[in-house]
């Protein structure tokens, strides 16, 4: 690299990290690549999962991660106490009362739903499914906490299931399902969009936020917004909060769209046939190259990096959008292409550049350390554990089902800082505070502890009796940026070995603990040092990157 090119790159705020495109990756498949794939596509990378995927090929690993998982077998439970509709504690409130007038009870149920959703992410296994559900939740951003009085909690549960069912499927089917989703119809006023006075809210966001975006080549017009609203008139919810189409409220005239949509005309229909205009319009929206690019940019931002310069646009976004369209908007196909690409694995070393979102940080650390959670036989404990994580995610500014604006969490769209917006002078020490807490006394709610066991984690590593390997194996799991040999030596020497020069002292201490783990001296010797070691790692700025 010439000096000139260095200086040019130094002036750029961020370098894309890879000039490779989507050609299939054929390089090494080892721990760093597996960890990279897992941290990006799931929440954290546990030792067991790393070992599992190292046993598969890269391609088989991606296929396995993209395989949809089963619909949750549990439903959100009453973790809030008194319920005027008669739901007993730790019985489900799904299907029990619409609660139009009981705002407080509805708020309690939304909070229960939020806890339950945290539980789904914790239990998401070796699959991208929950992370994609979260991605689409951000894409179709909603705030249930602003709608206690008009949207029953069950509708948010239904919306979660709708997003989940489509998360890895066909994008057009998902947009349609969301367009007709009762919670969304209420949230963006589709339920009051009638031919005599169209409400443009959903028609606008459908194009601006859900399909076309606001890129320089997204040239839909205000007339298009208006016509989209006309297409959607009559789609509403009934008194039981079920979706319904009322032909009498539908504008059955033809809707002529702009040149951006190739002057497409959605032919209007009277009667029940009017409902079918939605399909015509969605086909038109997704027919643009810009729509596919817009979604691919969002996916790139979420899974790779937020910088979208000309190189990324040419090498990744455009070809990926072509793949997306050619597949008929199959989400799994586009993800598979991205996660099997040379570009994605070029980012293993250069690109530990995603600042973990609060949920990635919290759910990830619970999964990476295999933090003990109460099981289904102890629902009160389960909900307490989930609630602790929920409360932390709220103070870290990522509250599920309470996205502050319809464009999504700021970190995913607010240029130029993007992911950096998760980190500020309050949230950064907050993250350190919480990892310190979990690594020491632990968090606690209603008698349920949430605590990291550093010895259990060390035990899960291949050879914890060797301090050199213990340090490097721990870093492989916990810290994505490379750590130099001298820094590894320093960590080992000053923390694990209390500055002793002979590594055998750690080996002796570890083996003494394994031989007699109930001996308090044996235990405290390894516990104190592992606790300090992992605390230190999690306090490093590097820990915030994946």
């Amino acid at each position, binding site marked *: 690299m010439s000096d000139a090119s260095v200086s040019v790159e130094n002036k750029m*705020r*961020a*370098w894309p*990290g890879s000039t490779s495109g989507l050609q299939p990756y054929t390089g090494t498949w080892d721990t760093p690549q597996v960890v990279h794939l897992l941290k990006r596509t799931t929440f954290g990378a546990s030792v067991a999962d790393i070992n599992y995927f190292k046993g598969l090929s890269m391609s088989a690993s991606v296929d396995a991660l993209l395989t949809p998982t089963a619909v949750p077998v549990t439903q959100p439970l009453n973790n809030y106490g008194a319920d005027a509709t008669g739901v007993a504690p730790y019985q489900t409130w799904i299907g029990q009362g619409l609660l139009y007038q009981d705002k407080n009870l509805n708020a309690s149920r939304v909070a229960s739903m939020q806890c339950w959703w945290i539980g789904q992410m914790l239990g998401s296994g070796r699959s991208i499914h929950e992370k994609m559900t979260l991605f689409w939740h951000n894409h179709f951003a909603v*705030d249930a*906490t602003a709608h206690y009085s008009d949207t029953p909690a069950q509708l948010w549960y239904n919306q979660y299931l709708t997003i989940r069912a489509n998360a890895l499927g066909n994008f057009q089917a998902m947009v349609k399902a969301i367009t007709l989703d009762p919670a969304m119809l209420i949230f963006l006023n589709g339920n009051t969009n009638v031919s005599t006075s169209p409400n443009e809210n959903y028609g606008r966001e459908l194009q601006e936020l859900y399909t076309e975006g606001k890129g320089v080549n997204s040239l839909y017009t205000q007339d298009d917004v208006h016509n989209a609203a006309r297409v959607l008139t009559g789609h509403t919810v009934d008194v039981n909060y079920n979706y319904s189409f009322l032909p009498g409220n539908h504008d059955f005239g033809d809707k002529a769209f702009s040149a951006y949509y190739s002057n497409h005309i959605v032919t209007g229909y009277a009667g029940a046939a009017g409902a079918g205009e939605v399909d015509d319009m969605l086909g038109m929206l997704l027919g643009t190259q810009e729509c596919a690019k817009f979604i691919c940019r969002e996916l790139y931002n979420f899974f790779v*990096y937020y*910088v979208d310069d000309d190189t990324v646009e040419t090498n990744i976004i455009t070809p990926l959008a072509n793949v997306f369209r050619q597949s008929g908007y199959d989400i799994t196909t586009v993800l598979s292409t991205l996660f099997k690409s040379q570009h994605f694995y070029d980012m293993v*070393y*250069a*690109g*530990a*550049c995603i*600042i973990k979102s609060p949920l990635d940080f919290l759910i990830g650390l619970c999964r990476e350390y295999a933090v003990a959670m109460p099981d289904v036989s102890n629902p009160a404990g389960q909900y307490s554990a989930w609630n602790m994580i929920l409360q932390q995610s*709220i*103070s870290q*500014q990522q*509250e599920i089902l309470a996205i*502050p*604006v319809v464009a999504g969490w700021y970190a995913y769209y607010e240029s130029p800082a993007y*992911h*950096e917006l998760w*980190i*500020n*002078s*309050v*949230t*950064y*020490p*907050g993250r*350190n*505070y919480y990892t310190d807490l979990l690594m*020491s006394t632990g968090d606690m709610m209603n008698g349920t502890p949430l605590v990291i066991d550093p010895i259990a984690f060390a035990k899960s590593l291949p050879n914890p009796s060797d301090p050199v390997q213990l340090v490097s194996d721990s870093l492989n799991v916990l810290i*994505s*940026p490379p*750590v130099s040999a001298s*820094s590894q030596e*320093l960590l080992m020497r*000053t*923390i694990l070995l*209390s*500055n*002793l*020069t*002979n590594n055998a*002292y750690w080996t002796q*201490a570890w083996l003494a603990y394994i031989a007699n783990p109930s001996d*308090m*001296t044996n235990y*405290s*010797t390894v516990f*104190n*040092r592992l606790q*300090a070691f992992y605390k*230190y790692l999690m*306090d*490093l*700025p*590097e820990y915030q*990157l994946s």
Partner: protein
Amino acid sequence: MQRRDFIKIAAPLATVFPALLCGLNVKAYSALPFMGGWTGEGAADNDHVLVLIQLFGGNDGLNTVIPIDKYGAYQNLRSNIAIPQSSILTLGPNDKSGLHPAMTGLRALYNNDQLAVIQGVTYPSPDESHFRATDIYLTGSDSTQYLNTGWVGRFLGQTYTNFPNGYPNATMPDPLAIQIGSVLSPTFMSTGGFTAMAVPEDVDFYSLINGITGPEPNTPMGTELTYLRTVARQTNKYATVVEAASAKVTQQYSGYPANNDLATQLKTVARLVAGGLKTKVYMVNMSGFDTHGAQVQGGDTTSGNHAVLLGQVSDAIAAFMKDLKFLGVDKRVLGMTFSEFGRRIVSNGSLGTDHGAGQPVFVFGDAANTGILGNTPDMPATLDVEAVVPLQYDFRSVYSTILRDWFCVPASDVDTMLLNNYQYLPFIKGTACNNTIDDLNNIGDSVIINYPNPFSDSTNITYTTQGGHTLVQVFDVAGHLITVLVDQVYIGTGTYSVTFNTTYLASGIYYARFQNGSVQQVKTMLKVTQ
């Protein structure tokens, strides 16, 4: 839209913020006003500073502070590593011990009335594991007690109540404690979290030595890491004051030894103290004292690894003291060296020594009460290889004395901080806190004796108390506490006897330890089979 609040979080000091301190090149120099003797209510009301120097690995005390009065026995039990008598650096004319020949710097401090030596520092039933013994010293626990706070953390946490909530503030704008290096010592852990901040050891060359901090490459990762480190730095509430303090000092004593890591660390401490930080405790450290082999060079026991280590410690401390005087803050600083244990009395066959117990502790500074506290250990001609230097002074007595007589903490608070009541020792001048310090010069050598000695089934132990709390303990040669014969309060002076029944004990050497006020004495007793 729901309104969302940021929760208020007390930022943990625990976090090490790499790249904390910039290279400094500033002009102004400001000397600090000096406060002399103090009669305040505790550590927050005076400007006294403690510097802890931890020697990792277990320092061989018997080759550091070398017996002169029992030289023959010493030479006999460790003939392959014994320092020649002619090489020992003598101290006062009546002193029973001298220093290793490499420690000329410390001898100069002694001759300058700036060095106290405390002999036989350990605790009942000492642990010979580096790790456990380190934890015991840093937390201040008993050998069977497991604490999750450090003794300094408890001291600072109780002195600066509610820390870290509400700190920094006008009264305490600076870090309570500073660890030189990258990783905080467990000794700084309080119930509210760490009370210390880590500062790189050489503030002039921070980029060379700042722990794990690696470069920030020109990649997306480097971009984000730079951002995170910037926020981390901004979040550290103390970065600015530490930098400012460091920047105030533009000239320091020029005689610090080269290639001496401890000296580099202490130079940074001197700079921060002189720069005006109100920080109470600094910790520095040095490795390599685990001298199982090649402690000395064969054929010349005055050279070798241990000699190099002791020379570095001594040179570093001597330069530090000169610097403190140069900077005008010498009256404010008291230093102390300690290790996790001393080493065995009998040397091994590898020109080294194995893990032991009792060690000499050095306390230095203008406030140090010059002298050697305690005796050289008894060294019978035949001694088990497992024999350790027996307990004379509990290490927590050293801590309690520093808290009461250097930081001027009321005695009742000292008990709370150390979780027990410990003997106070006369190694700090009474002027530091205007306390009355016991004079141990006229105690006599035989406040505890036993007869018969040797004995078979029992022996009578006679001791003379000055009144007050009086303790007679018996230890075996490995330091295990065998029994407590006397643990009571006497009204007034008196001489008493107690019978030590030994029918259940193996033959061999036992130590009877007497403690009364600041006084202690150890009597060696020999049980023989009939």
